[in-house]
């Protein structure tokens, strides 16, 4: 079903086999499909112990006492540690604000917070010993929403805040608040012919990566530790781990182990410090693996949100103003909340032209589960609301929803609410045109010669309808996502590239600390090296901390930034090898003196294709190795009062059309087709690009219809920490996913590429919901939409 059409030719190859633009296959693909890939949870070490965490059973309480004596007395137990056993004065960690205790101290702030850790010679022994630790709690009042967070006399989730946001927030239970004011929304509202308001509620989504948190810490002879870990950013982990252990960073040696998905959920630490503490305490290797239940408590989730929007428009369909207020629930610890707030605020209007805006986004501290990074990072919640609003305004104006979007679509040069000019292609109208022009799936697609095919109907094999009550709906949405780290963050990557001759052939080795979490970075980096150095044989070394930081595998940034670093390092290698060539062979051919020499097919060639020398002859015994840091254009912080500033590096855009069948009596939904058009600047690996778009699209579908971590509003306990009750789309829930890829180069980015991974998660959700609204006529102001919401039985 995958259609690829692009004005610039998506599958253009390079002149070196396996280079940029080719759909080279992933080195880990077959291993993963056949079950042979070694994930972090598969690691084993002789004499290793198993670590186990004891987590809080209540959401907010003082810890009156912790009794570990019975656990310590359990045969097979080597160590039990609590806050008091931490080796140094640094006992907290955090991505931006170090507010998270390694082990709870004095109080617990959310259900499932780590209180104590155990190491034993068998995982079952460790679990039992942990269960024998007695913790006495005195429960405290709960902060669960904005009202309870900011009520007079509200209990403070964190007392005595000293972080850099504390001074500018209106209440200590607000992590960070970002207003954006541009133009004059009040005056603009006076010009509006229609004003539409809406209140929306967005549920808590889990990353639900299939490989749970796991790692193996091995104590070193030098008093340091080797940590093999599934993570998204080795060096960020390292910065947080080493001080707690009281070790210099060079004695905490980290190596990436097999990562089974991430989606933002591995940006924060999970058991990294715990495993190292137990290994250093016992002098033995310690392995820790969460099971699925614990995984739901072991990482941050996507922020649930409440969003209030007001849109105004003139009769001819032009937006006059947007006012909005986005309240994100950050849960008990800050994690990435401040940056999520910045994203939600700055992207809150969507990919539209609107000069008069009044925006406020904030994240709460509460006793709900901590929330942080997840694919789409604040932009997802905003898109859910602004696109629902765009449909509402269009209906109010009697305009076609796609036409209304097209009228207001931003383009290159449009100013964002932050005042930043979008200075690369922004083909919003074109994406909408393409998505609308795609052929529609046939009506009553479930009918076959043998009657109704239930697999094609809502309910699927559960056999709930043979066509009764089924109504089709169609919905459209488009979204905007930033690429890379924003707001002045020094977002760089490091790459080390080596070129040498081995066995009569030139070979390249690329070493970065980039976390391959399934996104395909290792494939793309090899392609870049082939293209830049004209060498087919490229080896990607395992990611570890022996090389400089590659930044996070998030924010759709790895192909851009670490890819940029690999490209940059390759260019330096190329200059060096050409220098050697000039020295050795310069007198043989005048072209050596000219510019524009290339490396292709293992040879030095002129830009006219004339071969000057074999690389192996140039190199002889020389090994050329270059390590370089590479940065994208710098960004600026947003002004704390007006939100103005060039805060983002790059924007990416995707549009979706959803076609659904709704069983209007049972409230069950079958998504028939979810088509996407996305601009990727340049597809370095078209197959991977389409995979990213399809994966993000399905993750967005999950938000729309089923995925939600349900937190009890009274106890703040997680109600569904299992795959029995936290539902992910199965293949039978996954529709045909036609993809139309546009390649309009961003001249600021390597090869003109645009980060791909997140944009498709934004508009997918709202397209599905818009289609369900179209089928049912219901307002549907929350996500996920469950059967009870469609049948008036909620």
């Amino acid at each position, binding site marked *: 079903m995958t259609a690829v059409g692009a004005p610039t030719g998506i599958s253009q190859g390079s002149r070196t086999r396996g280079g940029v633009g080719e759909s080279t296959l992933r080195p880990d693909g077959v291993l993963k499909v056949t079950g042979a890939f070694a994930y972090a949870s598969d690691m084993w070490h002789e004499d290793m112990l198993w670590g186990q965490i004891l987590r809080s059973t209540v959401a907010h309480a003082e810890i009156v006492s912790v009794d570990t004596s019975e656990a310590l007395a359990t045969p097979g137990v080597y160590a039990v540690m609590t806050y008091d056993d931490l080796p140094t004065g640094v006992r907290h960690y955090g991505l931006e604000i170090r507010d998270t205790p390694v082990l709870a101290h004095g109080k617990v702030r959310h259900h499932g917070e780590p209180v104590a850790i155990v190491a034993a010679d068998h995982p079952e022994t460790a*679990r039992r010993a942990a269960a024998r630790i007695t913790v006495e709690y005195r429960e405290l009042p709960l902060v669960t929403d904005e009202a309870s967070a900011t009520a007079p006399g509200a209990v403070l989730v964190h007392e005595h805040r000293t972080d850099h946001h504390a001074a500018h927030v209106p209440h200590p239970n607000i992590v960070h608040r970002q207003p954006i004011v541009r133009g004059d929304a009040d005056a603009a509202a006076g010009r509006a012919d229609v004003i539409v308001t809406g209140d929306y509620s967005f549920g808590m989504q889990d990353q639900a990566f299939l490989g749970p948190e796991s790692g193996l810490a091995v104590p070193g002879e030098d008093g340091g530790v080797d940590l093999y870990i599934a993570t998204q950013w080795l060096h960020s982990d390292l910065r947080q781990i080493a001080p707690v252990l009281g070790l210099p960073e060079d004695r905490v040696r980290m190596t990436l182990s097999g990562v089974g998905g991430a989606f933002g959920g591995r940006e924060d630490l999970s058991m990294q410090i715990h495993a190292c503490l137990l290994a250093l305490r016992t002098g033995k290797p310690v392995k820790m693996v969460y*099971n699925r*239940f614990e995984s739901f408590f072991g990482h941050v989730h996507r922020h649930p949100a409440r969003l209030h929007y007001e849109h105004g428009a003139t009769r001819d369909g032009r937006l006059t103003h947007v006012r909005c207020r986005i309240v994100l629930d950050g849960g008990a610890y800050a994690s990435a909340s401040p940056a999520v707030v910045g994203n939600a605020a700055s992207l809150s209007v969507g990919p539209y032209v609107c000069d008069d805006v009044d925006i406020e986004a904030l994240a709460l501290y509460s006793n709900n589960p901590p929330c942080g990074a997840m694919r789409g990072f604040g932009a997802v919640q905003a898109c859910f609301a602004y696109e629902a609003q765009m449909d509402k305004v269009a209906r109010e104006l009697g305009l076609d929803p796609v036409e209304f979007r097209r009228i207001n679509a931003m383009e290159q040069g449009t100013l964002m609410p932050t005042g930043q000019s979008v200075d690369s292609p922004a083909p919003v109208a074109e994406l909408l045109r393409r998505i609308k022009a795609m052929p529609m799936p046939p009506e009553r697609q479930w009918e076959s010669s043998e009657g109704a095919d239930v*697999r094609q109907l*809502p*309910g*699927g*094999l*559960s*056999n*709930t*309808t*043979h066509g*009764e*009550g089924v109504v089709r709906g169609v919905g459209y949405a488009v979204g905007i996502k930033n690429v890379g780290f924003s707001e002045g963050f020094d977002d760089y990557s490091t790459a080390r590239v080596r070129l040498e001759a081995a066995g009569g052939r030139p070979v390249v080795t690329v070493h970065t600390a980039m976390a391959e979490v399934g996104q395909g970075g290792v494939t793309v980096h090899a392609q870049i090296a082939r293209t830049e150095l004209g060498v087919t044989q490229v080896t990607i070394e395992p990611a570890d901390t022996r090389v400089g930081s590659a930044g996070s595998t998030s924010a759709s940034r790895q192909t851009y930034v670490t890819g940029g670093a690999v490209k940059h390092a390759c260019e330096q290698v190329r200059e060096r090898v050409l220098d050697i060539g000039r020295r050795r062979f310069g007198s043989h051919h005048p072209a050596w003196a000219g510019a524009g020499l290339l490396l292709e097919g293992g040879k030095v060639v002129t830009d006219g294709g004339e071969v000057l020398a074999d690389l192996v002859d140039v190199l002889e015994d020389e090994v050329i190795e270059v390590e370089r840091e590479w940065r994208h254009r710098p960004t600026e912080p947003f002004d704390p009062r007006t939100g103005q500033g060039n805060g983002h590096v790059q924007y990416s855009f995707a549009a979706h059309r959803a076609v659904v069948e709704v069983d209007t*009596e*049972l*409230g*069950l939904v*079958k998504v028939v087709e979810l088509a996407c058009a996305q601009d990727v600047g340049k597809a370095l690996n078209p197959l991977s690009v389409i995979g990213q778009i399809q994966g993000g699209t399905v993750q967005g579908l999950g938000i729309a*219809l*089923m995925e939600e971590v*349900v937190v009890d509003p009274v106890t703040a306990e997680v*109600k*569904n920490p*299992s795959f*029995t*009750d936290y*539902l992910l*789309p*199965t*293949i*039978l*829930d996954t529709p045909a996913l036609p993809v139309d890829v546009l390649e309009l180069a961003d001249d600021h980015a390597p090869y003109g590429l645009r980060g791909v991974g997140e944009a498709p998660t934004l508009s997918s959700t709202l397209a599905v919901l818009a289609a369900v609204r179209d089928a049912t006529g219901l307002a549907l102001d929350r996500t996920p939409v*469950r*059967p*009870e919401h469609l*049948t008036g*039985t*909620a």
Partner: protein
Amino acid sequence: MDFLRPADWEEALAAKAEHPTAVPIAGGTDVMVEINFGHRRPEYLMDLGRVGDLAEWEVGEDCVRLGAAVPYTRIMEHLSAELPGLALASHTVASPQIRNRGGVGGNLGTASPAGDAHPALLAAGAEVEAASVRGVRRIPIDAFYTGVKRNALEPDELIRAVHVAKADGPQQFSKVGTRNAMVIAVCAFGLALHPATRTVRTGIGSAAPTPVRAGAAEEFLNAVLEEGGLWENGKIVTPSAVKRFAELCAAACDPIDDVRGTADYRRHAVGVMARRTFTWTWESYRGARRTTEGAV
């Protein structure tokens, strides 16, 4: 936890008599989840994997004797003609991997109201063959479910087989989950027409503390079919009667609000499924009558 591995049925019964707390395990699709999550730590686990005849079935003149450990996959593949309702229900159980291991005995042993087999067994009027060192008895399915996750088995008894009458008329099964495959039931409904006895039987899953029949609804519908001579003349059942039947099925529910769905939704959905499954089976019955008459 001690692990018992009886070599045959006699050893299994003896072991169960000696250790009445022993939890039997066959496919393990339910028991292992509970153990892995720490919800259950039985003193003894009894593996029935070596008791071969539990995975066998016999198709008799009127009845199928279905071994307790016959995997759902087998039921789908081999018994869809004899036990159409149970075969449809089997199709909705979890994933192919689970269906390859799980069987009806596990559903009955756990007696969770969410077990997919229950509505079909209730609608078909099955009997559970329970055995102990004291002997063998057959427990009518209507008397089997005694409370939330409780059943009529004595502590020394094991489920050996289920006896289900071969379908004498159309049967249907519907289940609502929040996704289109591999989902635990929010609620489920089974319905079987029994032309031989001129009766309709129902089964409701996940909408009461135990799997239940909609007794009043069945009586109402039986009367409608009888009074109109509909079993004989094959006429349509009036929409108002079908609607009333559906309402009575919904009224037979005693559901709760939980993370999977609201009580109101479950009641509503059972009504919709009752109406649809009856309509499908009755249309099928009428169609079959016409075909038969045409052949004559």
